[in-house]
């Protein structure tokens, strides 16, 4: 036990050292321009943000990636002499709604943050967001897709798109491509996210007139899906919708292909994650993914992917991209509002943000839902390819 642990610790230590050492050397100096005035002349204001993330518990896989993305965003913002400096107080919600409440109270009353990012899962937000709403602290959700979340109040925003925004397009695309006549679905029945995915898929199959021939559910943490998939195989569907988080999703893809199911498989936001391809391997080939974040377009996205990769030696997923961009959005809101401490002004500033960044052209609707373009992707040769919008 000792040696892999030590090896990993040593590796981490090396990465941290490498991560700290690298950016110091890349200071661009514009040719011919006068040397930039010393930043000590006027000290930059400080925008203090709280991040309530699931670092442990069932959602830890997302929370840890989000923490990395948020810290990277703060570093990138602070490297530019533009607007206030950003500091982030990260707290662990342990994927637990009760702990999320405690974390919110600490961030609001002890750390006195200007705004909060998170929490990671919708069920944590449902419990903790009312605390922020009551204290009039703006919250920007970075991975919550629950349908009723924003009803909590006018201080709750989100940059994450719900399954309802991304799945219908994917189903429509599959219908256009294959004229499918039999659909099946497998979904997680104890998770708000996968439950809403199930609803949205059923509605989309109805809209596209593809009859449902098999409806199978599983529980969080299951490893064996062969019983449900054997049922599905006996109905011989052409389309198989998978409403699952990436851990279960990768296993479902593998076991479905192993059982010889050759239906076109469709997933939602959770499947827009390089971990899916890494885990499912060849079984992920051809899977259709309706998602909010296009990781293939050039520009800021590629710079983000490159920076994330070199800092953490892993490819970022959609939820990491949303977390990264949310820090910039709050920073923009503070710039628009010309304050780094006035919570109400920052809240109003969020509605005025217009930016082109890692999520493409981004703004908020007056409903505080995000306004940007979802797309349909397909996994080809181990990579995401945009096939439609």
């Amino acid at each position, binding site marked *: 036990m000792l040696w*892999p642990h030590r*090896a990993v610790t040593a590796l981490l230590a090396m990465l941290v050292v490498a991560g700290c050492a690298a950016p110091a050397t890349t200071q661009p100096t514009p040719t011919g321009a006068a040397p930039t005035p010393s930043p000590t002349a006027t000290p930059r204001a400080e925008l203090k943000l709280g991040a309530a993330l699931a670092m442990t518990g069932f959602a830890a*896989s997302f929370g*840890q990636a989000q923490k990395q993305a948020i810290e990277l965003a703060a570093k990138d913002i602070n490297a530019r002499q533009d607007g206030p400096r950003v500091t982030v107080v990260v707290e662990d919600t342990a994927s637990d709604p009760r702990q999320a409440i405690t974390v919110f109270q600490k961030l609001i009353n002890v750390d006195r943050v200007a705004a909060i990012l998170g929490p990671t899962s919708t069920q944590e937000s449902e419990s903790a967001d009312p605390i922020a709403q009551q204290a009039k602290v703006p919250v920007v959700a970075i991975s919550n897709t629950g349908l009723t979340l924003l009803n909590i109040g006018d201080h709750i925003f989100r940059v994450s798109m719900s399954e309802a925004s991304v799945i219908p397009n994917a189903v429509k695309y599959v219908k256009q491509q294959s004229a499918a006549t039999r659909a099946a679905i497998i979904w997680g029945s104890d998770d708000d996210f996968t439950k809403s995915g199930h609803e949205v898929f059923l509605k989309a199959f109805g809209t596209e007139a593809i009859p449902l021939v098999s409806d199978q559910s599983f*529980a969080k943490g*299951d490893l064996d899906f062969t*019983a*449900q998939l054997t049922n599905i195989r006996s109905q011989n569907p052409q389309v198989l919708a998978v409403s699952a988080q990436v*851990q279960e999703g990768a296993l479902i893809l593998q076991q479905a292909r192993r059982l010889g199911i050759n239906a076109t498989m469709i997933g939602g936001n959770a499947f827009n994650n390089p971990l899916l391809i890494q885990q499912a391997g060849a079984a992920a080939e051809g899977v259709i993914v309706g998602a909010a974040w296009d990781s293939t377009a050039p520009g800021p996205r590629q710079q983000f992917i490159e920076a994330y990769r070199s800092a953490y030696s892993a490819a970022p997923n959609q939820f990491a991209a949303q977390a990264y961009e949310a820090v910039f959005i709050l920073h923009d809101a503070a710039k628009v509002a010309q304050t780094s401490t006035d919570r109400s002004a920052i809240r109003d500033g969020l509605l005025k943000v217009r930016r082109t960044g890692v999520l493409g052209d981004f703004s908020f609707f007056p409903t505080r839902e995000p306004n940007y373009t979802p797309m349909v992707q397909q996994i080809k040769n181990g990579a995401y390819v945009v096939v439609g919008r």
Partner: protein
Amino acid sequence: MLEQQLANGIFQGSVYALFAVGYALVFGILGALNLAHAAIFMWGAMAAWAIVTLANVPFPVAIVIALALAAALGVLTELIGFRPLRGHPLAELSPLIASIAIGVILQGLALRAFGADPMRLPADTIPRDPVTLAGVTITPIQPFILMTSVALVAALHYMIRRTSFGRQMRAVAADQRTAAMLGIDADRVASVTFLVASFLGGVAGILLSLNFDVVSWTMGDQIQLKGLTAIVLGGMGSIPGAAVGGLLIGLLEVLSVAFLTSQMRDAVIFVVFFAVLLLRPRGIFGRWVNPAG
């Protein structure tokens, strides 16, 4: 379709059985539940993965090292969480709580060391291409899983019933103080019991990770409940009971999905569980022991 579902259930059940036997062994001999068992199960799989991937050691060698580690973790659990509490006024409860703590610590260590994402074994570690025999699709690893489980449960049964150390174990199970007076080293019996139980837990972890090609720090969470249900179904402390209980749960899960609906799966298991508690509280193979004497 039924043949396929039965095969699914038997393979799944055989891993549950092997896992549950570890619980039953400790409970049967020492009268205490080791709730760190699921974390040790996870560490067996996790260590095998880590050694293969990070140290590039051949897989069979990695398995041997990982199993030694799992067994050592079991011995350590007994030493830290159970031995100091023997004779404690709350002797029934305190080792149970201590083992929960050890389980949480072991799980946290795995999360710290390897991160929250699930991991796969390197592509060439095991054969993955499925074969179809008489309409049943299986992977080459599945018959191996079944045979290993059956062989290990049988070997354990033989050890307890037929060897002199097994006799010592049964003596300790009957009455620790009397066994000690007869010259049996109860501490040693406790250590070896944990060693064997955790070795089996480690094997179950590795088999499960081979079957599904996944290793993660949470892989013990689901099987923990299944294992506890299996030992109550089979009869607390009965080795054959735990094995049959595990197999039964694997089959029940699959058959409820096949003939009812997948949403009823866990409900069916716990209805059966409840019925057994009501109608035959000692379990299928359990002998009734009156705690008062």
